[in-house]
């Protein structure tokens, strides 16, 4: 039982699960699930009660029982008490104060990750303002490598997302050229396929592998299909760089995605066996998003942000290259408007980084949400300032396959110019070598000898 006296009223919360849910900044998904605070005052009272909870309590009280959920078991069984020691005596509120203090250096914050549980990260995020989520995340550096180096401080990468509604190869190739010419693609060139047929998937993998090898691009490719399909493709000899999977924070949501921890292990081992990385071997790409557990009816009465943080506990077992929270894709019944999407994007990035993950964000919305590109500009700017590892780059921000809006190649240029963020060093050097950018990383005037331009002419002919 958790109790707090605030504004002349005594509020009680029967469990950590209830306390976390009621302390969450308002969002439609928690109302839909029936777990949100009933009033604005109760919401703040819950934050006050949560601030006084010792971090140690999170090791004693599981929000979903150990016996019922393999994600809880993963969290409990892999907790690193030695890494936890520096903050073991703190309450949630003291942890926030420490994180934002000068004492919490990037080295100290980054070293904490294996000692923190997702619920601790979620808890502290709930009592933080948006600006705290920016500065807190900025201290947690997570660097990963495959063919280039992603996540160095002062750097930001972008996924080139060249989707096409019928997987038309020329259509996809056209978007790839466009993205590369705009200096985009250092996180990954990643296609959401329309088909889940392993033959069609393999064709796309071969096509991207050809482009990457032909132009010697220091980046990696991925077709975002189910892990079991990628395992199939590897068995058939397809050139797989990264293994993709959507994951969630409970066993139930993962099972609704048709995925188990064993599948993820098998996928990772398959990709590792190909030894296709040149500067590192982080070979997994995960996507997540608040609301997936409720959508799968597997939320166990928990709030969607805490469950999202639990998805990162799954991700970190597999040393991913990229973890992407697809924040506004799910729709207004989970995140109603720009304000809720912005908040959720900052929370996810912060919690992921605190837990040691290479967090990126698909800064996005659907057309039935109360949001527009101006809201995305705010989230993009704040995530850029927070040190986000990567964002999406989509032609004109308009994904014609998935029917939602994200960030464009131009948006990536914007945030680089506004905040001075650099691309992955290997990719940056390549862009300069072929003449897309000048020595400062800015787009250069088009040069006739640029092999990508020659390629574009050949495609059109």
């Amino acid at each position, binding site marked *: 039982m958790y109790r707090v006296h605030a504004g002349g009223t005594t509020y009680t919360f029967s469990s950590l699960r209830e306390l976390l849910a009621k302390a969450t900044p308002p969002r439609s998904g928690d109302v839909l699930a029936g777990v949100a605070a009933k009033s604005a005052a109760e919401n703040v009272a819950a934050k006050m009660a949560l601030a006084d909870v010792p971090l140690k309590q999170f090791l004693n009280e599981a929000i979903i029982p150990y016996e019922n959920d393999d994600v809880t078991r993963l969290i409990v069984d892999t907790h690193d008490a030695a890494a936890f020691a520096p903050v073991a005596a703190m309450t949630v509120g003291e942890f926030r104060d420490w994180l934002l203090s000068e004492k919490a250096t990037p080295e100290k914050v980054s070293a904490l990750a294996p000692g923190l549980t997702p619920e601790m990260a979620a808890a502290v995020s709930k009592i933080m303002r948006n600006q705290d989520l920016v500065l807190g995340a900025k201290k947690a550096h997570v660097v990963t490598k495959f063919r280039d180096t992603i996540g160095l401080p002062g750097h930001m990468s972008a996924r080139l997302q060249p989707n096409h509604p019928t997987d*038309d190869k020329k259509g996809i190739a056209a978007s790839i050229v466009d993205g590369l010419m705009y200096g985009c693609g250092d996180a990954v060139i990643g296609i959401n396929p329309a088909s889940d047929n392993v033959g069609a998937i393999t064709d796309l993998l071969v096509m991207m592998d050809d482009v990457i090898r032909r132009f010697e691009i220091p980046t990696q490719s991925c077709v975002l299909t189910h892990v079991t399909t990628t395992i199939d493709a590897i068995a058939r000899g397809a050139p797989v760089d990264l293994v993709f999977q959507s994951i969630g924070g409970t066993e139930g949501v993962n099972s609704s995605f048709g995925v188990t921890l064993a599948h993820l292990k098998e996928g990772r081992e398959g990709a590792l066996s190909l030894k296709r990385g040149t500067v590192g071997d982080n070979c997994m790409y995960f996507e997540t998003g608040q609301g997936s557990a409720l959508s799968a009816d597997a939320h166990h009465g928990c709030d969607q942000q805490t469950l999202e943080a639990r998805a990162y506990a799954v991700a970190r077992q597999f040393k991913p290259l990229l973890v992407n929270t697809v924040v506004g894709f799910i729709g207004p019944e989970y995140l109603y408007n720009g304000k809720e999407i912005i908040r959720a994007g900052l929370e996810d990035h912060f919690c992921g980084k605190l837990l040691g993950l290479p967090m990126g964000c698909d800064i996005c919305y659907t057309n039935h949400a109360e949001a527009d590109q101006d809201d995305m500009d705010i989230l993009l700017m704040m995530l850029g300032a927070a040190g986000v590892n990567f964002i999406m780059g989509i032609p004109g921000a308009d994904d014609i396959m998935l029917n939602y809006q994200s960030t464009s190649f131009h948006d990536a240029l914007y945030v680089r110019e506004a905040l001075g963020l650099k691309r992955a060093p290997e990719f940056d050097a390549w862009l300069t070598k072929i003449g897309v950018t000048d020595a400062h990383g800015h787009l250069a005037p088009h040069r006739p000898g640029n092999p990508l331009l020659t390629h574009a002419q050949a495609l059109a002919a």
Partner: protein
Amino acid sequence: MAADPWANLKQFTDARIGLGRSGSAMPTHEVLNFALSHAMARDAVTTPIDWTRIENGLADLGLSTMRVASAASDRSEYLRRPNLGRKLSDHSREALMRAAEMEAQRPDLVVLVGDGLSSTAVTANIVPYLTAFLPYAAKSGWKLSPVLLAADARVALGDEAGEILGGKAVLVLIGERPGLSSPDSLGVYLTFAPRVGLKDADRNCISNVRQRGLSYEEGAFKTAWLLREAFKRGLTGVNLKDESQFLIEGQQGPELIG
């Protein structure tokens, strides 16, 4: 403004490539084109349907209609609470029960038109689609319910309506979530033995029916093919694969099946 010399690649994709740039930003006309597309998609979500116009159009096809509503009280609640859009309002439930009592014979097919997430899709496509579909229904001798015109509807609203009217199957025609380049897509959902509690895996879907997408004739053909198979095999959903394209390629009509 700097133009992109590869803009001729636009011939291969509707993606917004080769836009050119003004510094790091999109050129003015591209920013405004995008804003217009978004505005049209937003309007598709928020503009109420002119149901009278739909009623008149369907009357011209010889179809009777009946208006119903979901349990969502307004558009904002509809967007926040999808569960309410899947349930009939008390008033509509009672009205359908009375209608069911008055019918001597159960319908083979309950037809429900829902606004869904795009009123634009329903207004633009419902009459031409049903014009293409009705000849197939007539040939097969299917008895149709009055067309239910449902406000603030989700797909599963058809399960409850179909169950009350005792239909062997329900056909839900509904506005899909609007894309930036396709604010007017109509979705066609077919569910055998409709009843409350069914899941998406129990249905078949034909997506993107619109003037610049899947044609009305093709959409109607696929619907009729799936319906025939559903009645024959007694199911819809993941175990009923749409194989109608083989027939289109072979130039056969669905009336030749089964």
